[in-house]
């Protein structure tokens, strides 16, 4: 069953066609990747799903509910969380507080309860702290919980972003280039982490340039170029797809395409840019 469904989604910025008539299906409980050259419209797709942009045309549905025109925070409370391409943590808040913010849409206490510090509010705050620490524990950040987010190492900041997204208790997690700027060891750890998350029942949809990661863990790969879907399939199928190689390396690369061995090297070389 498809959880998230994009139908004929088009996004225009003035005259620029960023996403062109895209149909996309994110099946539940799988790891799905969206790849494509720079400027292909991958992040725009994420922004459309999470309500940052309103699609010019087409519909986005999640478990049968239409997401078009919803505020981003409503999309989040429907169970879709995301991370960002360039890390966007709340830098002057502590690690723990960053995760606590994620619980906002799952808790109720308003200003009146906070002013009078009712029993309910105190209980809720306690719960939030406990749950946040659980999440931080899962990401191996519990030792840093009182550090400022900006003092974490790069890889830790990436993990904290995922932790904050998880605090909103999503069913679908959108990761925007989670491995950007990571070294091979950190990437390997991230792959393990993503698989672990999938095993807890999350659906994971990621945009990524690191082909080792994409080919290593995704079950379905969708390729985007100039806002259009040019290919979809398992990692193996994508690696052998001529249109994909053309999109990434230009038409010249096709004439050299002879042995499958060579292609693997070609796709792998992408991780270096």
């Amino acid at each position: 069953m498809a959880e998230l469904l994009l139908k004929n989604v088009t996004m225009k910025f003035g005259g620029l066609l960023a996403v062109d008539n895209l149909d996309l299906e994110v099946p539940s409980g799988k790891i799905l990747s969206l790849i494509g050259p720079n400027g292909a419209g991958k992040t725009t797709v994420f922004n459309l799903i999470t309500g940052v942009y309103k699609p010019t045309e087409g519909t986005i549905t999640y478990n049968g509910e239409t997401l078009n025109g919803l505020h981003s925070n409503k999309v989040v409370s429907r169970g879709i969380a995301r991370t960002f391409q360039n890390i966007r943590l709340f830098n002057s808040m502590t690690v723990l507080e960053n995760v606590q913010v994620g619980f906002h849409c799952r808790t109720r206490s308003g200003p009146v309860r906070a002013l009078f510090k009712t029993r309910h509010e105190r209980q809720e705050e306690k719960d939030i702290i406990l749950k946040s620490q659980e999440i931080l524990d899962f990401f191996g950040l519990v030792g840093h919980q009182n550090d400022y987010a900006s003092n974490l190492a790069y890889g830790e900041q990436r993990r904290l972003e995922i932790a904050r997204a998880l605090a909103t208790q999503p069913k679908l997690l959108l990761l925007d280039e989670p491995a950007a700027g990571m070294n091979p060891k950190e990437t390997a750890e991230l792959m393990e982490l993503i698989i672990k998350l999938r095993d807890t029942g999350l659906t994971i949809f990621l945009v990524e340039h690191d082909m080792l990661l994409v080919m290593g863990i995704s079950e379905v790969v969708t390729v985007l170029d100039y806002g259009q879907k040019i290919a979809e399939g398992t990692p193996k199928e994508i690696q052998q797809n001529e249109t994909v190689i053309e999109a990434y390396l230009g038409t010249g690369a096709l004439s050299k395409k002879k042995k499958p061995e060579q292609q693997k090297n070609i796709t792998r070389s992408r991780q270096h840019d």
Partner: protein
Amino acid sequence: MIQKELKKLVVYGAFLVIILTPMLGFRSTTFEPGRVLKILGIFMTILVLNIVVKFIRSQKKDDGRKKTPWTEVVRKRINRYPKVYTLGGLLALAFAFPMFADNYMIDVGITCLIYVCLGLGLNIVVGLCGLLDLGYIAFYAVGAYTYSLLNLTFGLSFWAALPLGIVLGMVVGCIIGYPTLKMRGDYLAIVTLGFGEIVRLVLNNWDSLTAGPNGLFGMKRPALYYPSFGEDGFTWVTYYLKSLPSLYYFILLIAILTIIGVRRLDNSRIGRAWIAIREDEVAAELSGVPTTWIKLLAYALGAGFASVAGAFFAAKLSYTNPNFFLFMESCIVLCIVVLGGVGSIPGIVVAAFVLIAAPEVFRGLENFRMLAFGGIMTTMMILKPEGLIPASRRRRELRADQEPPPKD
């Protein structure tokens, strides 16, 4: 090094002469070069002393130890005692104040405490939520006028008018907040400045309701009610808080409640959402924080606190007029927040006392009072850009170079 410092001294001196020239006075009757020379002399002495200190410091060997600034030393010394003692001591001092102070000092104290309330209210909007509001005094005006009108027209007591004033203040806060939700920074500041002026001009020109620039007068003071068992049975006796000490204790209570309220909000789920919006609005929205609603809430609550202060202000003076709510007042409240340390409750309390009491202390300087006031503000900002008692978060932001570098 000495040569460089001497050069500086000459430049500063020339600069001072230019600044002080207008003070010579151009009419023959007030021509008093001696006065200027006196001021020049004082400033030059300070500069010379500064050079001497610098020279002595440069002679001292740098022992490589990191020097802790004196504010840190004071903080550590205070933190050695349990917080209860510090707070209890301050509270006792605040309560004992009217016993040894004269009426003038108590009056200044009351004004300071009103500004503590205003500063803390604005702290919610500017400090926590990061929305630069230059028209904050409008809500103070709303509170003052609501109580005045309700008391004069319907004879409502302070306690009955207060909730209505708070609600009306919050509504006006939302009205001003709603159109500005998409704005940030400079643009927001200009729009709020405009709204603040609109409120004042409406009060100034709506003669039939607000009596225009004449103002309203004759409001009853806040009252306490206590039961009395006299000859004719059980009655409630009304005690109007007319004397300055009683008004002082009343505003002290309001200020303490405001401090507790703002502190609780700061540490709550809503407070975290405010800070998240200040840090990164997009990320906050995508972490499930309904930014629109939470920002409106910041405006409304900030306005509510100002409204309480306004109602007290009108009740205390028994008089109100639109000229109490000039743009300058908004500026002073903002200065309190910024000088005290954005987002820091103790900082704002201290800054309110410094900024409101300083012009009074300098009354002896007559015409140069505001000059000294400006000098204090400038010096404070240069020496401690993050505020007198910075919030722990803010300290990090502005003094990033002193933090240990991030691990890799």
